[in-house]
């Protein structure tokens, strides 16, 4: 895989926001909907500049944890940045699982929405905001799409546009909620590699809820395995991708192989099922 990684996006304003206060601390984060407890006291520390993969079965609480971090659900406990503040939209940007792409909105208008957090209550986008968006569109090879209707993009295009909007927020922490679940394998890889490149060039910290364990293991620096609202394991990929641990959590027999130095998680051959 040979590719030139271009230098950091040269943004007109200070793009130094990234990586200065990237780390995040979750302490005893508890979320209940009615009397159903979705997160039961999550402790998690995020290291600046890392890619943390959140894995776990459906309904384990991955999305809820991400939504807590960007303040979309009420939680008990605390989620703070290094400076002790609760993160806001200028600190964390979310790439939602099923983003709403409004009919008739152009790609550039959509990406401009990412500037909302940087604008005053009644302010409108300045030339600076627009050139930030232009730079990002160019960076993501979306320049030809600027005038296209977001509702008419293909899955892969749409996902890049949503990533572009998150980048326009210029937040040091990027939250991805199963960003590739609707994409084919090729587009999955290109979106994830794009995010990984951006992470390195922009110094972003990434938390991504991921379905595919092999992909998670390839892209993440560390994994956090969530089961029924609690973190059962967190650490380097090789420590978390253990067959017994995964089989227990996912309630099916899984095996982990090493192919060309990469961990590959597979369902156990049928004969081995209990």
């Amino acid at each position, binding site marked *: 895989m040979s*590719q030139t990684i271009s230098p950091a996006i040269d943004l007109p304003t200070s793009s130094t926001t990234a990586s200065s206060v990237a780390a995040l601390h979750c302490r005893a984060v508890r979320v209940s909907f009615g009397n159903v407890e979705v997160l039961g006291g999550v402790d998690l520390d995020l290291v600046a500049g890392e890619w943390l993969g959140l894995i776990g079965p459906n309904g384990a609480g991955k999305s809820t944890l991400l939504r807590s971090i960007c303040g979309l659900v009420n939680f008990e406990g605390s989620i703070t940045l290094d400076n002790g503040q609760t993160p806001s939209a200028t600190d964390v940007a979310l790439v*939602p699982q099923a983003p709403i792409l409004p009919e008739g909105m152009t790609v550039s*208008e959509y990406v401009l929405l990412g500037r909302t957090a940087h604008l005053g209550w*009644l302010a409108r986008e300045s030339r600076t905001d627009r050139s930030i968006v*232009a730079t990002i569109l160019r960076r993501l*090879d979306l320049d030809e799409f600027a005038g296209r209707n977001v509702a008419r993009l293909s899955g892969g295009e749409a996902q890049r546009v949503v990533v572009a909007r998150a980048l326009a927020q210029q937040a040091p922490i990027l939250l991805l909620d199963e960003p590739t679940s609707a994409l084919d394998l090729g587009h999955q890889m290109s979106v994830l590699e794009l995010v990984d490149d951006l992470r390195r060039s922009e110094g972003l910290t990434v938390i991504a809820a991921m379905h595919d364990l092999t992909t998670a293991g390839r892209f993440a620096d560390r994994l956090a395995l969530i089961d029924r609202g609690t973190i059962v394991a967190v650490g380097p990929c090789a420590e978390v991708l253990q067959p017994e641990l995964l089989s227990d959590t996912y309630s099916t027999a899984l095996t982990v192989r090493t192919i060309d130095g990469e961990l590959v998680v597979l369902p156990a051959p049928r004969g081995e099922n209990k």
Partner: protein
Amino acid sequence: MVSLDHTSATSSSSVADEVDLAAEQAFRLPLRAVFVGLLVLALVGLFSASNGAAGLPVMGVVTSLLDHLPLIGVDSALSDRQVAILFQIRLPRMVIGMLVGGALGMAGGAYQGVFRNPLADPYLLGVSAGAGFGAVLALGFGLDIGWGPFDPVPAAAFVGSVVAVAASATIARGSWSSPATLLLGGVAMAALFSAAQTYALQRLSETRSREVLSWLFGNLSTSGWDQVWILGPYVVVCGTVLILHRRHLDVLRVGDDEARALGLNPARTRLLVIGAASLMTAAAVSVSGLIAFVGLVVPHIVRLLVSNSYRVIVPLSALVGAAFLAFVDVGARTLIAPSELPVGVITAFVGAPFFAFVLWRGHGSTA
């Protein structure tokens, strides 16, 4: 594979300009469209001022208007009687028509934005039912709650509207972050106030109830300058609030959750926008009665002809609504002269087929 290798600086700077251009369209578009809208509005104004029971020559109207501007003295060809018709009858009615049409159009666009519902209109939260109930009480039971320049009927209608919207919001327990709950609150209140209004109508004598009904259908026949001074400030102040929030309405198009993740407070936006739109609608309804169709259809016409962005829809709906209602009111005054048609009937007669035609032309996209 996404290539991150970028081409030479020259080509990418021209690309940046292109992107910048596309991004700026959202701002340039309204300027151009607003200019066209103002032109149409001026033409409709001239048409409206010169047509009626007594026809006035267009040039006479123009010179007479110029004559009334400070520092300009033109000899208008109009007789004193014609000047009196123009300034005491025609113009105030036309201005009221424009204010009411503009208010309804803009409020409709704003409602469609905050409720993210293309079927929303300014009467959604019970403004109409509340106004109707208030008017019935004032007309039928001689409630004299008029004060200052306010007649009892408009005052009661205004109070009824505001009470109904406030009640809708209250029973939805101020759930400004949940459009569906608010909407259901509106449905409940509208039903309650309509029932009360129907009951009150039943208790009235036939002439009284006919009077109420003709008011409810909506007309601009009692318009004088007094009403312009009552309605104008509401439209200007509330309209300004809506125009200032038009970017927020575009952010809300991605849903409350994403809007919040982007740093917008949807509840605060919704509270302000619904408050301003409802107040403006209540003021319009209290002056003109219930004029159907303008608030629902005008924003869609703007959407289909110009843009889906609320930055465009909000200001342009005001202009298109104003021109539309002033135009249609000419028909209300002249079609069955010397008597009058309720303008609300004509808005539906003219608006529905036109809307159907625009839809049929096949742009098909809403919301």
